[in-house]
């Protein structure tokens, strides 16, 4: 009896293990692909090839139906909620406030020595190159949500309402200012304002990593104040629209409310004044906006013409060009501009927006980008 049980146990354990590759090969063959792992037989096993094979195995496992079945075992989803490197972490604070876990860690965790130094070096170099072409640079730092609203992360740990600033970000901004770069330091701007009263629209969307319309207007006003140009009247007009938008953190968490269930937001949509050209064309604009997803919000998708580019255009009374890359505010947008230097024709001011996250994250690349002369 005991011997039979032991034999059965051994066979069941081995079956549990062997089912992993068998399920994978079944999926691979059904898709007309070579079975996972056979790549090892076709390549000389160098360190690089082995790491690639390892990544292939990991990626294949994530699609493996047997592995997915096991991953659905009761309790595991809850455990993975602690630290889910593949599915991406999230921090659910007090509903409906959500925060992106890596952003929270940029506040709570020490940063490596030299954080922010590569950023300020790249900014100074970019300013020099633009200045050589007679173009002014205005740098805009978009706040990190958990640093701006730390008390919303978890009510039980909230003891005050003040925003917080990472010293590395403060130092990077200070280095740029000392060198003469015009910086619209939005964390500083927001921190100086009285916090929205309960019931008022907050600066940031509870379920999103980005600002609300109210926060966006604060940002646009601060940028216009720095640019210092008088408004050209009669070019644009605004109208209020009530719109529903999906929120990125709600989507990331999964189980996001259906679009119809989300509350409507009031947006100021910018349009051309009667008899004027539409807002969108930006060729020949004197102001060029470079930025990340903060420039996409309210500008593309469910609502258009209400984002940062449009708000700047309305306040200036002039068209504003835009080069945008989600998550690429630090380097990708500059590389894009370097590939299309014609976008600088007629430009007098480049407004370069990037997230405070980019100043603090060790993963952000701050490449030196050469602008063609």
């Amino acid at each position, binding site marked *: 009896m005991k011997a039979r049980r*032991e034999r059965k146990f051994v066979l069941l354990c081995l079956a549990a293990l062997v089912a992993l590759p068998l399920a994978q090969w079944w999926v691979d063959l059904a898709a007309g692909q070579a079975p996972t792992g056979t790549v090892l037989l076709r390549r000389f096993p160098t360190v690089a090839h082995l790491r690639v094979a390892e990544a292939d195995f990991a990626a294949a496992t*994530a699609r493996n139906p047997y592995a997915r079945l096991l991953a659905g075992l009761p309790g595991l989803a809850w455990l993975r909620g602690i630290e889910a490197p593949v599915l991406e972490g999230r921090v659910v604070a007090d509903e409906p406030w959500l925060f992106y876990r890596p952003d929270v860690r940029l506040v*709570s965790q020490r940063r490596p020595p030299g954080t922010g130094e590569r950023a300020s070096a790249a900014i100074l170099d970019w300013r020099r190159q633009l200045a050589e072409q007679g173009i002014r640079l205005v740098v805009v730092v978009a706040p990190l949500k958990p640093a701006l609203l730390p008390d919303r992360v978890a009510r039980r740990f909230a003891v005050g309402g003040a925003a917080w600033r990472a010293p590395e970000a403060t130092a990077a901004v200070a280095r740029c200012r000392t060198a003469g770069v015009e910086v619209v330091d939005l964390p500083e701007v927001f921190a100086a304002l009285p916090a929205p009263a309960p019931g008022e629209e907050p600066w940031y969307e509870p379920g999103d990593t980005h600002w609300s319309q109210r926060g966006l207007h604060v940002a646009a006003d601060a940028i216009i104040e720095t640019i210092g140009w008088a408004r050209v009247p009669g070019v644009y007009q605004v109208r209020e629209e009530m719109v529903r938008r999906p929120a990125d953190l709600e989507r990331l968490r999964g189980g996001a409310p259906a679009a119809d269930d989300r509350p409507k937001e009031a947006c100021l949509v910018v349009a051309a004044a009667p008899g004027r050209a539409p807002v969108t064309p930006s060729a020949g604009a004197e102001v060029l906006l470079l930025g990340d997803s903060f420039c996409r919000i309210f500008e593309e998708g469910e609502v258009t013409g209400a984002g940062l580019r449009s708000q700047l255009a309305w306040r200036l009374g002039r068209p504003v060009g835009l080069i945008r890359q989600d998550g690429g505010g630090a380097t990708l947008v500059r590389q894009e501009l370097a590939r299309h230097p014609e976008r600088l024709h007629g430009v007098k001011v480049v407004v370069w927006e990037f997230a405070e996250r980019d100043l603090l994250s060790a993963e952000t690349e701050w490449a030196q980008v050469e602008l063609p002369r």
Partner: protein
Amino acid sequence: MVFASPIFLGYFLPLVLGGYYLLPATGPARNRWLLGASYVFYGWWDPRLVPALFALTLATFGLARWLGRADLAENRRRAGLAIGVGLALVVLFVGKYLGFAFDNYDRLAAAWGWSAAPAARWALPLGISFFTFHAISTLVDVHRRQAKPMDSLVDFACYLAFFPQLIAGPILRFGEIAPAYAQRRHSWAQAASGLALFSLGLAKKVLIADTLAPAADLAFGARELDAPAAWFGLVAYGLQLYYDFGGYSDMATGLARLFGFSFPRNFNAPYLAESITDFWRRWHISLGTFLRDYLYIPLGGNRRGAGRTVLNLLIVMVLGGLWHGAAWTFVCWGLWHGVLLAAERLLGGRAWYEDLPRFLRVLATFGLVLLGWVLFRAESLAAAGDYYAALVRFDGTAGAPGRLLGAELFAAPHLLIMVLGLGLMWSRRRAHEWSGQLTRRRTLLCLLLLLLALGVLSTQRSTHFLYFQF
């Protein structure tokens, strides 16, 4: 390749196991197969290191055969031992400590205006601390005539490279394990107990250690830390380390059983120790006995008076600390334990809190060990100093970083797993014996734990074992 990864569990292990049992039980085929598998396992990390491992194997095998000759004069045997041990230590020094030595030299050079050391630095070759110790164990045991050298190079290479213990031990005494390479028994019962122990180890690693790892990482990487968070993080790290390394040892021992070997127990409920002396009888037992038999006793042990005993303890523990890592934090960690052991030795082999009730003695020992783990985990002595300061910071003035840390750190899953970890740790069940007496309920539990662990592993990157860095 790590045990807790789909590639090992789903591909490597079934393939090696299947091939092993298809080969004839008699003759050298199975050991050859195991050797090939072990080299693939090791080479998976960096194939260029396999020839280096084989070269050390060849040199040690030749020297051991020479030392084992009955007609060799004693002075030549001593010289041969010195050469062999020296060679293993040189390999260990170059692979593990040269960069550390260069870094320290560079600091002195900067202060004194000397020229800098060569810029050569390389990653620590995986498992170097273990296979060099196995080589030393071979030479010493053969020299002491406690074991005969192996006749087969394949068997010896298999001993040095056997994949279950190659990367993170346990450290196997040559004299104790060598006979198994010539002859060993296989049975369903042994395979079942091996798989049960392996499943328990995998669950310890994946379900407990990896769940607590973020809590420890958060606390040790925090910008702001107060006492509750610091203690929480420290306990989390203490448990993570135990379940990570203990889990690895269980997996290694379980795998060995699958191939007919019997590894000694490497942990014996270390956090139930009632003194630091007791702790070192329970924690990483194979390292403790290795240091005792191959270093402490040759230094004179406790036979040369109290002063020399204290000195010997300090030397052994500082070197033991350095063995764990080429950093001053590990030296200080070894010194911390050396001082505590010496103090207990001077008190007649008892802790200064010996008169307390047992529960408090265990708690006091756990606390002292935890304080040592700060040095073990911290990136630098300065960081360790900051952490010690945080352990007594009760002012409650944490700013936003501290509050955000708390929001993540004191999460319900962390608390629950910590309670589970403490409960299991202080229970009287020992995986090593528990897995040897399988009932229906135990087999079901092991199977369930295996499936749960596979479920977790299939959705996250494989995590390395803490002891791989040593």
